[in-house]
C-alpha cells in the first residue's frame, strides 16, 4: 500500500514538508473524533431502534475543548497544537528519518478528510432531500406577523414553503458528497461543496443562524480537498498553460489489503448513505423531528377568534394593546395550542439543529417567534380537561387546566384556572380563572390560494 507506480518519488522542499506536518496534525484532529464526549454519544445510542437523528448526530462532529457549541477558539487551540507538533516532528525527522516526501501521507490525509466531509455534508443533504430540516410552517406560524420572527426563523419558514427547492438543495449536497468517495471525482465534489457551503456560511452570518462555525468548518475541509488539484486547475483554466495530471496511485498490495479497503468503503457508504437515506425517508413519512407528532384535540385544528373573554370576573373587550386579552387561538393538528395576545414573549432563541428529541422538547414552532405563547397539552377526553404547559423555557412554570365544551362544530368554550408561575408576566399572578369562547375562522391563506390558482388570474381575499 505504499509508493507509486509510474512516478519517481520527487523530493519535497523543506517548507512543503513542514506545511504537510502542520496540516496533517491539524486536519487529523479536526476530522477524526478523538473527543471523549463523542464516544459518550456513541454509547448512548439505542442501536435496536436506530433513528436518522442518531446518525445525523454522529456525522455532526467537530472537536471542542469548551462546553457548548464548537467555536473558532477550538480551531485556534487545534492550530496551536498542530504548530508545536509540526515543529517537534520536523526536529525528529531531520535528526533521524530524513523522509524525502509525504506522497503517501498526503494521500491518506486526504482520504480521511474526504470521508469526514462526505458524511458531514450527506447528513445535511438527506434531511433536506426529504424536507425535514425546514418543514412547512405550522398554522401558528402562518398566523404570526412577519415582524414577529427573527431573521433566522424567517429563513427557515421561507425555505419550508417550498419543499421541492429544499429537496433540490439536499440533492446538490448529496451529489457533492458522493463524488468525494472517489479519488478522481473528489475535487469536483469538493468544489461543489465549497461553493455551496460558502453560501450556507454567508446565510448563517446574515440571518444569524446557529451553524456558522460548523459550515465554515466543513468549507475548510472542502478547500483542503480541492487544494490538491488547485494548481493544475488554475494552470489550465486561468493561466492557460499545459497541466499535468495527478500521477500518484495508491497501491494496495495483497488481497488482504484490497479486501480491507473494499470492506471499509462499503461499510462506510452503507451506514452513512444507504441506511441513513432510508432512515430519513421513513422519518419524513412517519417521524419528522421539528414539530411534535402526538395527536391534538380531535377535529379542532384551526384558528379561532376569541368572541368572549372573561378573566376573573372582568369581561374584556377586544383589544390589540391589552396584554391580557386573547386575540386569537390556534389549535395545531398535534397537541399544541397557541394564543396571540399583546403579552410580551421572551424569545426561545435556539437556532441549531437538534433532531431526535422527544415530543415535548420539540420547540421549533416557537423558536425565534414572538406574538404568540405556545402550550403543549394533554387531553383528558373523559372529563374534557386540557392540561397546558407553556413550551417556552422562559415560562417553564406556566400551567393551565382548562375544561372544554364544544357546543357547535366550530365553537370551543374553554374555562379553568392556571398560573403563570415564577418569572412570567401577563395573565395576572397567582391563580387566575379564565373563560373564553372560541369561534373558528374560515381563514383562507394567500400563500395557498395563490399556489392553487396561480398569480395570473385575479384573486380577491
Amino acid at each position, binding site marked *: 500500500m505504499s509508493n507509486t507506480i509510474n512516478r519517481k518519488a520527487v523530493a519535497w522542499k523543506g517548507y512543503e514538508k513542514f506545511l504537510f506536518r502542520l496540516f496533517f496534525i491539524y486536519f487529523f484532529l479536526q476530522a477524526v473524533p478523538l473527543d471523549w464526549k463523542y464516544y459518550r454519544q456513541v454509547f448512548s445510542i439505542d442501536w435496536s431502534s436506530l433513528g436518522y437523528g442518531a446518525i445525523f448526530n454522529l456525522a455532526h462532529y467537530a472537536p471542542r475543548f469548551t462546553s457548548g457549541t464548537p467555536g473558532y477558539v477550538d480551531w485556534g487551540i487545534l492550530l496551536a497544537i498542530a504548530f508545536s507538533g509540526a515543529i517537534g516532528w520536523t526536529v525528529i525527522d531531520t535528526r533521524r528519518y530524513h523522509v524525502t516526501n509525504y506522497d503517501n501521507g498526503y494521500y491518506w490525509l486526504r482520504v480521511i478528510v474526504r470521508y469526514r466531509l462526505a458524511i458531514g455534508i450527506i447528513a445535511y443533504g438527506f434531511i433536506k432531500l426529504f424536507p425535514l430540516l425546514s418543514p412547512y410552517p405550522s398554522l401558528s406560524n402562518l398566523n404570526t406577523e412577519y415582524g414577529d420572527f427573527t431573521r433566522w426563523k424567517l429563513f427557515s419558514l*421561507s425555505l419550508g414553503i417550498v419543499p421541492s427547492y429544499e429537496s433540490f438543495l439536499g440533492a446538490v449536497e448529496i451529489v457533492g458528497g458522493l463524488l468525494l468517495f472517489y479519488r478522481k471525482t473528489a475535487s469536483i465534489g469538493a468544489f461543489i461543496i465549497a461553493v455551496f457551503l460558502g453560501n450556507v456560511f454567508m*446565510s448563517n452570518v446574515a440571518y444569524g443562524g446557529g451553524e456558522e462555525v460548523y459550515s465554515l468548518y466543513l468549507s475548510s475541509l472542502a478547500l483542503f480537498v480541492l487544494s490538491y488539484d488547485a494548481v493544475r*486547475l488554475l494552470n489550465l483554466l486561468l493561466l492557460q498553460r499545459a497541466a499535468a495530471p495527478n500521477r500518484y496511485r495508491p497501491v494496495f498490495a495483497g488481497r488482504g489489503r484490497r479486501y480491507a479497503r473494499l470492506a471499509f468503503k462499503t461499510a462506510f457508504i452503507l451506514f452513512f448513505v444507504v441506511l441513513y437515506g432510508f432512515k430519513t425517508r421513513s422519518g419524513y413519512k412517519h417521524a419528522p423531528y421539528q414539530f411534535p407528532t402526538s395527536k391534538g384535540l380531535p377535529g379542532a385544528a384551526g384558528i379561532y377568534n376569541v368572541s368572549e373573554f372573561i378573566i376573573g370576573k372582568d369581561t374584556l373587550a377586544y383589544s390589540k394593546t391589552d396584554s391580557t386579552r386573547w386575540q386569537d387561538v390556534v389549535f395545531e393538528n398535534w397537541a399544541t395550542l397557541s394564543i396571540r395576545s399583546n403579552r410580551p414573549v421572551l424569545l426561545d432563541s435556539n437556532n441549531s439543529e437538534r433532531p431526535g428529541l422527544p415530543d415535548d422538547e420539540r420547540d421549533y414552532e416557537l423558536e425565534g417567534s414572538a406574538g404568540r405563547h405556545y402550550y403543549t397539552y394533554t387531553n383528558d377526553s373523559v372529563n374534557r380537561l386540557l392540561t397546558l404547559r407553556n413550551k417556552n423555557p422562559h415560562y417553564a412554570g406556566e400551567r393551565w387546566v382548562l375544561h372544554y365544551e364544544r357546543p357547535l362544530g366550530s365553537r370551543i368554550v374553554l374555562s379553568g384556572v392556571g398560573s403563570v408561575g415564577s418569572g412570567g408576566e401577563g395573565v395576572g399572578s397567582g391563580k387566575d380563572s379564565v373563560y373564553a369562547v372560541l369561534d373558528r375562522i374560515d381563514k383562507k391563506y394567500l400563500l395557498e390560494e395563490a399556489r392553487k390558482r396561480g398569480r395570473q388570474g385575479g*384573486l380577491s381575499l
Partner: protein
Amino acid sequence: MSTATPAPVWTGAQKLAFRIAAFFFISISIPNSVEWYNTVFHIDWTRLHYRDLYDIARFGSGINLFGDHLFGSNLLGYANWIITLLISIAAGVIWTVVVRRRGTERKEYNTFYYWLRVVVRYRAGIGIIGFGFTKLLPVQMPYPGLGLLNTNFGDLTAQKIFWLSVGIVPWYQVFAGVIEVTAGTLLFFRRTTTLGAILLFGALGDIVYVNFAYDGGVHVYSSYFVLLAAFLLADDLPRLYNLLIRERDTQPHTYYPSFSARWLKIARIGLKGLTFFLFLGVLFYLQLVNFLYDPYKQPAVAGLRTLRGSYAVTEFRLNNKVVPYSPSDSLGWKEVEFEKWSSLSYVVNKATPLDLSNGGGDPQRDVNRNFEITGVAGGRRVFHYYADTIDKVLYLEDKYKAIPDRRNRAAGAGGDGGAPGPADIAATTGRGHRKGREAQAQPRYDAGMEKSPKGSNGKDWISAAALAHIGKEVDQIDPRAASTRRDQEYAQAKWEKRNRMVLRYDTIDGGNRVILSGINERNDSVYIVLDRINKNYVLTESSLQAGKY
C-alpha cells in the same frame, strides 16, 4: 493568425454543430423587440437614470417573427428558445448544403468560434451586471415597511416571501450582487471566462430553481444566463474531464486571433473600455444614486414625520355612527400604519381584489410603486398620499388599480418582461376604450399631480390652493436623483380610475394620538381616532437602509 495550433481541420459534425450554434446564439444575443431599440434610442445621456442602462442590459431575444407559441402553448416561456433552435437547425443545414454544393466549405471555424464566444461573453456579462447592481446596492429586494411587518406570514404569496427573505438581510443581498457582478466582469476577459461562466452557471442555476419553486416569474430570463454560461463552459469541460478523470496531460485553450493591426487594437481597447466605463463605472454611480435617494421599488418621497408609525384604532365612526372594534366586523379599520415614505396602510376585514404581480418594474411616480401591496392579503389596503401640511389635509390614492401598468417594457419576450398583460388586452376591449376616453377628457396637467376636471361634487379633487401647498412631487427627492426619465413620466401622468380619499389629520399629545376625518373612498364620512403603538419588532433592521426619508 493564431498564437498556437488549434485543430486544423474540424469534422463534418463539428462544423454542422457550429453553424447551428452560431445561428442560435447570435439570435438570442440580439434584442428582438422594437420597443428596446426605441427605448435605447431615446435615452437622454445628459440626465441618466440607472434604469436607462438597465434597459440596455436587459432585453428579450430569440427569433419571434413567428410568434412565441408552439402548439398553442408558450411552454412556460421557453417556446421562443425552441422556435429559435428549430430555425437555427434549418439554417445550419441549408448553410452546410450550400457550401458543399458550391465547394466552398472551410476546414475549420476557429476564428468564427472565437468571435461567437466574444458575442456571448459580452451579452452574458453585460446582462448579469445590469441585474447584479440592483443587488450590490440593495434595492431589488426592499426591506419590509411597517405594513408588511404587521402582515401575517400566511397572508403573503410565495414570491413575496422569497423577495422579503432577501430584503431583510441587505448585506447578504450585497453579497449576492458581488457574486453576479464578479461573474459578469470575469466574462470580459478571455482567461477568466471559464471561472466567470462556472460562477454564473452555479448562481443562476440556483436562481432558476428558486423562480420555479417560489413562482418568481423570472425563470426564463435566469435560465437564459444558465444557457449562455453552459455554452461558454462547453469549451473547457472536455479538458477538465481529461485532466481530472482520465488523469492525462492536458493542453489549454490557446487559439486567439491576432490583434496586431493598429486599428484593431484601438477598436478592441475602445469598445472594451466603453463597456467598462458604462456598465461598471456609470452604472455603479447611477445605482448608488438610486440606492441613496430613490430606491426604485419604494416610494421615494419622505412621509410626514409627525405621522410615521403604527397605530391602534381606538374609535371608528362611519357617517357619524360608531363602529365598535371587532375582528369580524367588515366596516371598521383594524390598524393603521404611516410608512416613512408617503404611504398610509390600513386593514379592513373584507375581501379586496389583489395585485399578485412582483411589484417591480420601473415606475417613477410613487403612486405606482406598489411593492407594499403586491402579493399581500389579510385585508390590507395601501394608499399613496399628497400632503398639504398647511391645511393638514392628505389627498390619498389607492395603490391598487384594476388595470396594472405594463412593466419592464424594454425587456420583451424572453426577458420575462412586457408579456401582454391585462393592460394590453384591455386596450382592445371596450374597457380599454373607456379608459382611453377618460384619459382624453383630462387634458390639463400639473407636474406630478393627477387631477380630475370635476370630482363627484363638481369641484377639482385637489384645489388650486392645496396644490400650491403640496408642491410638485417630481422635485421632492434629492436633486442628485433627478433624471429625464423621471420628468417625462411625471409629465405624462394621466387621470386613472382609483379609489381616493381626502382626510384631514390632527395630532394630539405630541403625535401619540392622531385623528383622521374626512371622506373615504366610498364618499362616506369617517372619523378615526388612532393611538400610537411603539412596537419592538423581533426582526431587527440592518445597518444598510435604502432611501432618504
